[in-house]
């Protein structure tokens, strides 16, 4: 009796295993779906919007952003994305792409930076910052990440970012490293990249801003980090806060040599 049940169990197991091997895995199926979506990535619509916003005279000073210095001199937008965050002498601050754009919107166009930073993602001027970031990121598509680590602030922010990455807390005692510190982890069907080293071209830091198909929203890196903290049950970090810039610095420096595919398309 015992033997037959073991045998039938084995047979049942075989039946489960064999067809599964013949099929493609779930993640291969998802990759195919993503490849299909790639052809009509709606991020292009946000890119176009961002490019318009860059050239359009707006704000209380009725000026364009064409003199904005994103790190390679006023008006240069090609290749800046893969070198941010970096230290800016004029603001004496470490800044990522979004916080730098907000600085330009304040100094050149006369917008209130504090007001923009308080705006919810996807609303008002914040939606414009995201569109601008999408366009600037797209102008560095295919280039490899190469963040500077020469200024002391840049080194400090890397170290602070590293600490934040491993800092556990919240109701679930989570850290960024809980999900992004080991090979082969995933949330539902999304593979989670290891972010303590270069995760490869177009993965992790090199994939955002990205268009999210399931809710039709354009997500910037700031929103990506904000949502990671939400999932960890941490309080929301402030927009463009030193903490988020430090984390970005850590991720960006680790991604050295990875080619950017931003703006990407996600589930």
């Amino acid at each position, binding site marked *: 009796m015992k033997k037959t049940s073991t045998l039938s169990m084995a047979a049942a197991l075989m039946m489960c295993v064999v067809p599964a091997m013949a099929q493609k895995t779930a993640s291969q199926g998802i990759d195919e779906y993503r490849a299909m979506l790639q*052809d*009509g*990535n*709606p991020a*292009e*619509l946000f890119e*176009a*919007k961002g490019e318009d916003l860059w050239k359009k005279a707006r704000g209380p000073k009725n000026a364009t952003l064409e003199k904005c210095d994103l790190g390679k001199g006023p008006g240069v937008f090609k290749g800046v994305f893969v070198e941010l965050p970096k230290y800016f002498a004029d603001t004496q601050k470490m800044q990522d792409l979004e916080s730098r754009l907000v600085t330009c919107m304040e100094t050149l166009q006369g917008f209130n930076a504090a007001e923009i930073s308080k705006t919810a993602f996807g609303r008002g001027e914040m939606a414009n910052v995201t569109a601008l970031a999408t366009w600037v990121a797209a102008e560095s598509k295919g280039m490899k990440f190469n963040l500077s680590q020469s200024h002391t602030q840049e080194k400090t922010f890397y170290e602070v970012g590293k600490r934040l990455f491993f800092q556990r807390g919240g109701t679930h005692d989570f850290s960024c490293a809980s999900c992004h510190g080991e090979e082969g982890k995933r949330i539902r069907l999304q593979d989670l990249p290891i972010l303590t080293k270069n995760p490869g071209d177009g993965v992790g830091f090199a994939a955002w801003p990205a268009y999210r*198909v399931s809710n*039709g929203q354009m997500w910037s890196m700031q929103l990506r980090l904000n949502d990671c903290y939400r999932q960890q049950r941490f309080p929301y970090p402030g927009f463009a806060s030193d903490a988020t810039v430090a984390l970005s610095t850590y991720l960006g420096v680790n991604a050295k040599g990875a080619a950017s595919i931003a703006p990407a398309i996600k589930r």
Partner: protein
Amino acid sequence: MADPMRIRAQASGDKATVRVLMSHEMETGQRKDASGKTVPAWFIQEVTAKLNGKDVFSAEWGPAVSKNPFLQFTVKGGKAGDKIAVTWKDNKGDTRTDEATVS
């Protein structure tokens, strides 16, 4: 005024492949906002395309089509230099036409 579409059209052989990205909310009318009120339906109802001014494509869409929709179709006889114009009209009567040259 609605945001522009992105249209790419490429000829190969005796056909041209047209890819269109439209910027539209495509609200189904089934969702409720934070205060519990129904978000009114707002979606593209008609899509038409013209090749050098001649109708080549028409479709009726409904609320099941995604936000920021992507459309791809092939036009027989489309060749490089031809003009392809795509028009959509939504249920609020708003409309937008964009044109691209087949490459």
